[in-house]
């Protein structure tokens, strides 16, 4: 384990200055992923800049009726927030579906977005991995990949993003805000994660030196009837093998608006816009739900051992939307 220095930043400007002064610095949120990676030598920072004193730990309403979530809000506080639970129930459910109570008490919103894949070839050192060692190859392609990507992958990397929270954020058109030494900026979540392409080691579109300050949830009435369902290989404390954030507005049996995002299918949360388009204006029934899922999954390119994800996701879409349609009818 490399010896590292530790500094606690007083405010955002201080954090940015510390990060700028040390090229091998890493910002430290809850440490629930970064510290693990340091123990295994995958991350070897020279300096940790602890963000816990930054004034980014609040959830506040925006002028247009949305919510601003600070970057250091813990996962536990996010899931417990009354406005989140009322207006974006799928987000609260997604957060609670992740990790364990102890980890959620530490993990932050910013850190959750930036967590690394749990692909065993990335976290273990013996095999090639283009994320860990660019150009070395992807061992998962021909190896163990039953929980790897079926959408949007490339021959250079088939790892999936592990976050549950980000799936719900993707469904709700969240915008990531950040600060750089040159000033603030923002990225819609849809553009936050880069396509895999031939550079899987480049994961986000954040400019160099940027520090995430928060996430803005624009007002979304449809989100009030929303749900997150996560399928995993045990009942708790496991990453998804397939998950769905869904919101549905049905009137007179017709789908007025629908939001769908998949988790554990790609290198990023997968907003299912094809499915949304296919379903909008249709009768809210199982046949239409299945057709919508199929419309999205037509682009899937499963590997030899992860094809089961397609029927699984289809089942999730039909099951969750059926439940939401029933809820909307009540």
């Amino acid at each position, binding site marked *: 384990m490399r010896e590292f220095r530790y500094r606690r930043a007083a405010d955002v400007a201080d954090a940015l200055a510390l990060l700028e002064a040390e090229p091998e610095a890493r910002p430290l949120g809850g440490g629930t992923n970064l510290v693990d990676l340091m123990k295994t030598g995958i991350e070897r920072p020279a300096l940790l800049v602890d963000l816990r004193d930054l004034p980014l730990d609040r959830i506040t309403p925006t002028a247009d009726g949305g919510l601003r979530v600070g970057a250091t809000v813990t996962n536990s506080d996010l899931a417990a927030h009354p406005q989140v639970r009322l207006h974006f129930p799928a987000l609260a459910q997604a957060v609670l579906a992740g990790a364990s109570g102890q980890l959620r008490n530490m993990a932050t919103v910013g850190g959750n977005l930036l967590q690394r894949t749990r692909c065993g070839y990335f*976290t*273990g050192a013996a*095999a090639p991995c283009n994320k860990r060692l660019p150009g070395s190859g992807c*061992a998962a392609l021909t190896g*163990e990949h039953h929980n790897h990507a079926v959408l949007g992958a490339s021959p250079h990397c088939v790892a999936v993003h592990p976050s549950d929270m980000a799936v719900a954020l993707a469904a709700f058109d969240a915008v990531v805000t950040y600060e750089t030494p040159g000033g603030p900026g923002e990225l819609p979540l849809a553009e936050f994660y880069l396509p895999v392409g031939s550079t899987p080691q480049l994961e986000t579109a954040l400019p160099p030196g940027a520090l995430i300050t928060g996430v803005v949830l624009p007002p979304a009435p449809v989100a009030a009837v929303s749900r997150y369902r996560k*399928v995993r290989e045990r009942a708790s404390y*496991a990453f998804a093998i397939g998950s769905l954030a869904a919101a549905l507005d049905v009137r007179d049996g017709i789908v007025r608006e629908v939001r769908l995002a998949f988790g554990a299918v790609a290198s990023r949360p997968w907003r299912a816009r094809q499915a949304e388009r296919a379903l909008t204006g249709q009768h809210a029934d199982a046949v239409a739900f299945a057709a919508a899922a199929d419309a999205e999954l037509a682009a899937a390119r499963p590997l030899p051992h992860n094809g*089961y994800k397609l029927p699984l996701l289809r*089942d999730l879409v*039909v099951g969750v939307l059926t439940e939401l349609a029933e809820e909307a009818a009540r």
Partner: protein
Amino acid sequence: MTTATTGGPATRAVGTPHVRLEGRDKVTGAARYAADHPADGLAHGWIVPSTVARGRVRSLDDASALKMPGVLAVLHHGNASRLTEDFVGTFGPDATTQVFQHDRVPYLGWPVACVVAETPEQAREAAETLAVTYATEPHDVDFRPGHPGAYTPEEMAVGPACTEKGDVEAELAASDVVVDAHYSTAEEHHSPMEPHAAMARWDDGRLEVVDSTQGAYATARDLALLFGLDPASVHLRSEHVGGGFGCKAQVRPHLILAVMATTLLGRPVRVVLTRAQMFTLIGHRSPTAQRVRLGAGADGRLRALEHTALSATSTVREFIEPSAQYGRSMYDADGHRTVHSVVRLDVPTPTYMRAPGEAPGSFALECALDELAERCGLDPIALRARNEPAVGPVSGLPFAGRRLLDCFAEGARRFGWDGRDPRPGVRRDGRWLVGTGTAAATFFTGARPSTAAVTAHADGTFTARIAAADIGTGARTALTQLAADALEVTPGRVRVLIADSDFGDAWLAGGSMGTRSWGWAITLAARELRERLALGEDIPPDGLTVRSDTEQAVNSLAAYERHAYGAQFAEVAVDPGSGEIRVRRMLGVFAAGRIVNPLTARSQLTGGMIWGLSMALHEEAVRDTATGGLVNTDLAGYHIAAHADVPAVEADWIDDPDPDDPVGIKGIGEIGGVGSAAAIVNAVWHATGVRHRDLPIRPDRVVLMPRP
């Protein structure tokens, strides 16, 4: 004071619940595990595992490592002290002990060096940046049925590799109903919460060792043998052990390296394994590929039983997972055959893991019986009742009690089995299909010679000393209860000291024989002490001590089939769309002799049942054939049941007296994990109509399995 036993009426501590004596120390952190013991001048060793699966170490840049901050030494095959070749330890020949004795790399993760430094962090940094090159050779880690390298040995560690009576083929041909099915189980790892750790130092010509071990005496004896030391010069303690399950029963590399390093440096050295190293250096349960053929008359009476089991071992040491032995005492048939075979692969050496053989073997055979019951149109319990043997099917020996059907009767009553609709796939609860299943369980009851000493003190208290191990089971507490009853005093007057090799030879915590073997020795000594005190013998200032040795008593036990039995029940819910399986409740009813401490006994039994749950649904070490290593060497990737997976699990027992048995205690450490996976898998069939024969039943296997 002439008698110490007149302070009050005789107590009956055995059979009443007692909290763990060291429980408070454990939950407050006061209890010291092997890595917690301080020492002046302590140095820290860090193991460097090989990064290739087969080959030779070509070069190793220890010169650069030695220049790094705090580094004191780099041990490797070029400079390590010589160990006893052809080492034969408590569990037979064991070449896995030959660390740094050669340059061969037999599997990915084999120790190629150990960096010793002032701090663990310095040792780790130097270990992880140590440049090692290899001459690699092609490896084979691909375990599969029909592997051309498979062979059947004469003997396994636990008995013959094969048994055969009658003509299996003829009986199959004459059977009305035949089940012929292949089953597989995944590579499983013990991964006790406490990682293996050892601290060693020389003190006045004596090697003082603290190790995390299931048997202080055996480990000390083996360690002395390995290093060519006088056994009396090795003192080993393991006061608290945070789980063992079979992987802490033998000398492991961390201990060898701590001794090598302290001998070289002349200062105390501690070596602790990382969680990832726990997946390569301490043994595991081999994957198995099993085939069961059953032939029966239309009435369900077995005519043929054949169970063949293939497992993997390393190129270093032969260890065979004895899965097919399960049927040798459980079910009879005129044609009866059990066969083990094994294949040597470039993988770490497997070892005993909780219910070795019985856990995977009971899964295959008890699931095959469920299939037979279905084909015969019989209730699964009725099928088993129809096949109760009069004597040991293979041994011909009489049973020293066999209350299997009583376990089923009591379990069926409490579980609500009677009136169960046998049809599969017809009970729905929302998106879930619901079903129930059952299976039998057994585990042999053995004992091994042990010695103990019990001392009466002038103040009316007693001290018992025995090299037992409490690996979290509550052994210390159970032995205190047993000693108190034998002395006829309250447990508060008895102190039991354990886990110290200086206390003399004693069996280790394994084979479900710990409490039985140790309790026997303590009871013998305590009874004699009580009798001598009752006769008026004086207690000298340093106490009156009686020693016992059960070797003669153990070896003169009459020959019987001695086993514990159990009936396992499970209710599961399966979502065929998502592949999720949730166990809703489990019940195990056991006939397991005299239960010493109902509180901790229940924990052990339910713990075993949860192991079965994890085996059925979760546990799977995934080996990458390209690198030869595992891809999930942490507890985020290697799943065991989380709390949310563990439903209402109930374990109970029925009276199981054996008047011919001088102890009456049977082991309970393993039987909870026997049959429990089968009960769950059978319930999955009852829920869905789909027979899953490959464990774990992952969601992808459910989703992809054709539905009936």
